[in-house]
Structure formats: structure tokens, C-alpha cells
């Protein structure tokens, strides 16, 4: 028994022990572990876990389904997955930029709503040509998100108001104020949501005919992927990025280095808010075409966990948000085919996040086991030499 334990320990150390790759191996390990846990839950419910997982991938258009409705195929499923992915990617980047600067932007949902609402009423209902309307939607969304973010940063810099509190307050204020305007002026009496925005302003080309397929072509995801690389460059290669990270690691050190900490905080929140604004327009004028009053999307909150799963690294976030969205988007199909409740998908998502939150402990455990194994083998060597 002890020998088996020893072997298992050795195996773990061998796979996860390489410090250089731990930033990748440990999250992957966490993901595998939670998929196993999820499979156990599905088994307990008396369903087939493999089938459930396959249907998750099928629902997101990564594997072919058995049959498709007219004008639908795996490709259309995949583009509609991409459509849902864009806001999550932007929102997670927004959280990450703030986190790297030592700030916690819990108000991404409110900033998304602000950007979505303002671009909807200014451009969404106007009769502008698509070539003008679409860029304007992006610019207005980015700017309004940026202004809200900068306001939160300014509150912190000028009045020492904790950014968590002010962004939660702004979340509520945005939610209620915009709900009032939607219900009073822009409501669609049937859906009880705001009226659908014009096709020209929509960032997703809905029901475009390609060959004999009808698909939703999201423009946002291209921009989101480019933005992820741009943020990576900004953080790693520019002076602004260096200043943001320095303020994030130690405000005192930053002050000694002659960095204007107050302005950097405002700047960090402005960038974070701008990204949240883009998340807002890709959500409310891309994925959805309308806004449901009095509801904040959960994207902004889930993005916190996604950003942390991706280690607040833009490239890591591309992968982590992809994974979380596959599970989220595929869950509807899973519940209809495999008969597993869609909530199980969120349970698996939170398990992935829980296990990856323990990454620090896994790292520590691996190091300790590695040391004790090395010590043991050294002792055995000594003993053998003593015997001689």
C-alpha cells in the first residue's frame, strides 16, 4: 500500500513538478479533476457522463450533432457560440486589467449595461448606414464604459472611496435608471424588453445566408481576440503597462519610483471600463438585440472567476473564457439530449474554478512532496553506501 502511494506521489511530482510549466499544468489538472467530479455527479443522477460531455461540445458546435434543422449545421452552432463568447472575453479582460493594477472591478456588469443602453438609444434606433453605425456603436460603447470606469477610479483617487463599494452602487444605479427609461420610452409591449435594435447597428450579422446555411456572424469576436493580444502588448511592452503592474504590486514602491499612483489608478479603471463597455455593446447589440430592464447580466461577475482562472493573463484568458463558455453555451443542448439539468453545467464550471483556486496549495503540496521524496532517496543512497 505504501509502495502504491509512493508511486502515485512520484507520478504527480513528475507530471506537475516542473516549475516552468506549472502555470499551465496546474489549471489543466484542476480542469480534469472537476470533469471527473462532474462525471461522478452525473453518474449519481443515473445519466451517462460521456454522453453529457459530448452533448456539451455538440451544443457549442465543436462536434457534429446527429441531425440538424433546415439551414443549420455544426458551423452555425459554432458561430453562435462565438457570438456568445465575445462579451465574456471582453469582460474578463476588463477584470484582468484592473486586477493587474491591484484594483477589483466588480462593476463590469453595470458598465456593460451603461455602454449597451447608451449605444442602443443613440445609434441602435437611428437610420444610419451600417458602415457608419457599427463603428459608432463601438466607439460610443467604449467611451461610455471608459467614463464610468474612470469615475470609479477618480472616486478612489480623490475621495478614497473603495472601488468595490462605488462600483456596486453604480451597478444598482445603472440598473434602475436605465430600467426606468426602457420601461417609459423604449419598451416592446410583447417581449417586455427594449425594442430590438436596427440591423444596421447590430454587431452580429444575424441570419446571414452563406451557401444554404443561415448563420449569425459575430464581428465582435474578431475584435475581442485582437484586443486580447493588444492588452498583452500593453501590459508587457509599454511604459503604461509597467506602471499599472507596479502600482498593482506595491503602491509604496510605485510612489518611490516616481509613478503618479492616483493617475495610474484612474487610467487603469478607465481601460478596464472601456473593455467592459465593449463587452456591453457586443452583448446588448450583438448577442442579444435588446436589453431586459432591471436585470444585470451575470457575465460581469462570472468574468471575475474567468480572469482569475486565466491567471489575469490576456492569453490565458482566451483559453479560460473559451472553456467556460463551451460549458455554458452547450448546457442547453445537454439538458435537452442527455436529460441532464442545465444547472449541472454551472456546477461543473464552479468546480473548475474552485479547484483552480487551490492552485497555490497544489503547487505547495507538489514542492513539499518533491522535497520529501528527494530526501528519502538521498537517505536510501546513504544507507546503501553504509552497507558497502
Amino acid at each position, binding site marked *: 500500500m505504501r509502495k502504491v502511494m509512493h508511486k502515485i506521489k512520484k507520478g504527480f511530482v513528475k507530471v506537475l513538478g516542473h516549475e516552468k510549466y506549472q502555470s499551465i499544468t496546474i489549471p489543466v489538472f484542476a480542469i480534469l479533476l472537476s470533469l471527473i467530479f462532474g462525471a461522478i455527479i452525473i453518474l449519481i443522477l443515473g445519466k451517462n457522463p460521456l454522453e453529457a460531455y459530448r452533448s456539451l461540445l455538440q451544443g457549442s458546435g465543436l462536434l457534429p450533432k446527429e441531425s440538424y434543422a433546415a439551414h443549420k449545421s455544426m458551423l452555425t452552432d459554432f458561430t453562435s457560440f462565438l457570438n456568445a463568447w465575445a462579451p465574456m472575453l471582453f469582460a474578463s479582460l476588463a477584470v484582468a486589467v484592473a486586477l493587474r493594477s491591484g484594483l477589483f472591478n466588480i462593476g463590469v456588469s453595470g458598465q456593460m449595461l451603461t455602454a449597451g443602453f447608451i449605444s442602443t438609444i443613440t445609434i441602435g434606433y437611428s437610420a444610419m448606414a451600417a458602415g457608419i453605425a457599427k463603428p459608432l456603436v463601438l466607439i460610443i460603447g467604449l467611451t461610455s464604459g471608459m467614463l464610468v470606469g474612470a469615475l470609479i477610479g477618480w472616486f478612489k483617487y480623490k475621495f478614497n*472611496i473603495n472601488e468595490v463599494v462605488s462600483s456596486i452602487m453604480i451597478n*444598482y444605479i445603472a440598473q434602475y435608471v436605465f430600467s426606468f427609461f426602457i420601461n417609459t420610452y423604449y419598451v416592446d409591449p410583447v417581449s417586455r424588453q427594449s425594442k430590438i435594435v436596427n440591423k444596421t447597428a447590430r454587431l452580429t450579422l444575424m441570419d446571414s445566408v452563406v451557401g444554404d446555411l443561415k448563420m449569425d456572424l459575430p464581428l465582435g469576436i474578431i475584435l475581442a481576440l485582437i484586443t486580447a493580444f493588444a492588452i498583452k502588448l500593453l501590459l508587457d511592452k509599454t511604459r503604461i503597462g509597467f506602471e499599472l503592474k507596479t502600482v498593482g504590486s506595491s503602491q509604496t514602491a510605485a510612489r518611490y519610483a516616481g509613478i503618479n499612483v492616483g493617475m495610474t489608478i484612474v487610467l487603469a479603471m478607465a481601460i478596464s471600463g472601456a473593455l467592459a463597455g465593449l463587452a456591453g455593446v457586443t452583448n446588448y447589440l450583438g448577442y442579444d438585440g435588446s436589453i431586459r430592464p432591471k436585470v444585470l447580466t451575470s457575465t460581469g461577475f462570472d468574468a471575475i472567476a474567468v480572469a482569475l482562472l486565466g491567471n489575469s493573463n490576456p492569453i490565458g484568458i482566451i483559453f479560460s473564457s473559451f472553456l467556460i463558455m463551451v460549458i455554458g453555451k452547450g448546457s442547453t443542448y445537454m439538458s435537452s439530449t442527455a436529460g441532464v439539468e442545465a444547472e449541472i453545467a454551472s456546477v461543473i464550471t464552479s468546480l473548475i474554478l474552485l479547484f483552480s483556486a487551490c492552485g*497555490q496549495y497544489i503547487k505547495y503540496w507538489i514542492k513539499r512532496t518533491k522535497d520529501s521524496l528527494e530526501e528519502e532517496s538521498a537517505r536510501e543512497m546513504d544507507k546503501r553506501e553504509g552497507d558497502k
Partner: protein
Amino acid sequence: MDVIFIDGLSFALPLFIMAVGGIYSEKSGVTNLALEGLQGVGAFCGALVAVLVANSFSGDSQIPFYLSMLFAIIGGTLFSMIHALLCIKLKANQVISGVVINILAMALTTFLTKQVNRGVFGAPSDKFVLGVSNRMTIPLVSEIPVIGAIFKNIYPFEIIIIVIAVFAWYLLYKSSYGMHLRACGDNPQAVDAAGINVFKVRFIAVMMSGALSGLAGMSFAYSISANFSSSIYVGYGYLAIAALVFGNWNIFPTLGACLLFGFAKSAGYFIVQKLQMPSSYSDLVMILPYVLTLLLLIFFSKHNRSPRALGEIYDKGKR
């Protein structure tokens, strides 16, 4: 006019007791964004017990109510141990742990509610119907003009909350455990040097926050929503965090913040009804508590300071 006091208090007190839970956790040095999830899990456990025992007691019996309060506290405490385990033992990032617990709580309770409704009651539904709890009026004192309204039409949970809040205040500021707890949030190394187990103090503090949040969640379920469903997750947990940061991590100012939220909210509704405005205008007055908070913060938060070791993983070797 009375209605402002009555509704304001019944919203402010659950919010306050949840914020007190948050203060316990954060004063001991553990960031707790999980309040939202903890109150939901508490409400779920309590509501589950209430609907399970409902048939064993006569219609006007108060026993299911008290039982559900008890199980809400137990459920919240047990669930908070996940947060404690992750943050204290497994060295997880406390922010991610809190957010994840909220996601997990919401997914798990919605899922279980559906399963239980189908499996036990044979009816597909996504909520447990509770109804609004009975109210009582304390004789004599409620006759006093203006202030008397505080004693009119109170929910039984308001009294429970006040009793527990007084006890929580005593424990935090007057007992040796409370002193250790507060020291853990500012200088855990010193606490360790004095021979006290930092992990244990923090673990109990986080469990306290779970217990109090569970109680708060159940109170919301019995008053505002009159049932348990996923609509219990409307962000009151985050609001409680805002209240405690606003109250500078101290119990009395936090009570003030919660009362402000409560009264501003009920006064807003009162004005809308009194002036017979269309119901969509109630959204506009609903921003009152939040705008007021922001304005007050602008004037009063210059000297706010969070516990020094908040959010840091305790490392024995650190100096």
C-alpha cells in the same frame, strides 16, 4: 408614514446581520465576497425544512418558522466552511473563492430545488412557496407617536436579529476571542507569537459569517420574496459588503448604513404611492439609497482604512 419605518426596518435588519457576518470574517483578515451565496444557501436549507415539515404542524403553528431559521443558520455555517477551507487551509485567492462560492451556491440550490420538487413533491417547480411570516405588534410602546411605528407590525425574525446582533457586538468588542479576531486582521504574526492559533480564529470567524448570512437569507425569503427561488440572488450580499465598507468595518456605523438603505428604499416607495405616480417611476426612486451612499462616501471616506492583513494568506514565516 408608519409604513416607512415598518418596511425600512424589515429590510435593514437582515441586511445588517449579514453585514455583521461580513465584519467578523473581514476583521479576522478573510475577504468575504461569498455573503451573497451564503445567504442563498441558508435560505434554501431553511425553506427546504419549512416545506418538508409543513404538513406535520397545524396551519398557524410557528414551529416551522423557527425550525427553518435554525436550519438556515446551520446550512449557511456548513457552506461557509468551504470558503474557510479554501481561504485558510488551501491558500486559495480569497476573492476568487468568494465569487466561485456565489456561482456554486446559485447553481446548486436552483438544481436541488428542481430535483426536490420533482422527486419529493412530484410537482415540477423551481421554487419553495413559504408565504409571508406572521407579524406582531408590541402593545403600549407601539402607541407612542412617530417612534412607536418601530414596534408595529414587526416580523419575529427582527427580534431574533436584534438579540443576535447584541451578542455579536459583545463577542467582537468585549470578549478575548473578539480581541484575537480583530488582531488577526491587523497583525496575525503577533497573534501567533502570543500563542494563539490564527487559523482557528479565522475559521470560526468565517463560520460566523455563514451563520449570520443564512439567518439573513431566510429572513428575506420570509418577507420580501415569500418563497425560495433563484430570485433570492438579487445582490443583497454585495449590498451588505458595501454597507460594511461604508461603516469602516465597525458594527455601529454599519447599522447606520443599513438603516439608511432601508429607510431610503421604503421612503422612495412611499413617495411613489402617495403621489400616485406610474409604477415605472418606482425604479427611479429606487436609486435613492445608492446615490445617498455615494454622496456620503464622498464626504466621509477620507479616513476609511481596511484591516491591514485583509485578503492576505497567513504565512507563518513572514515577518
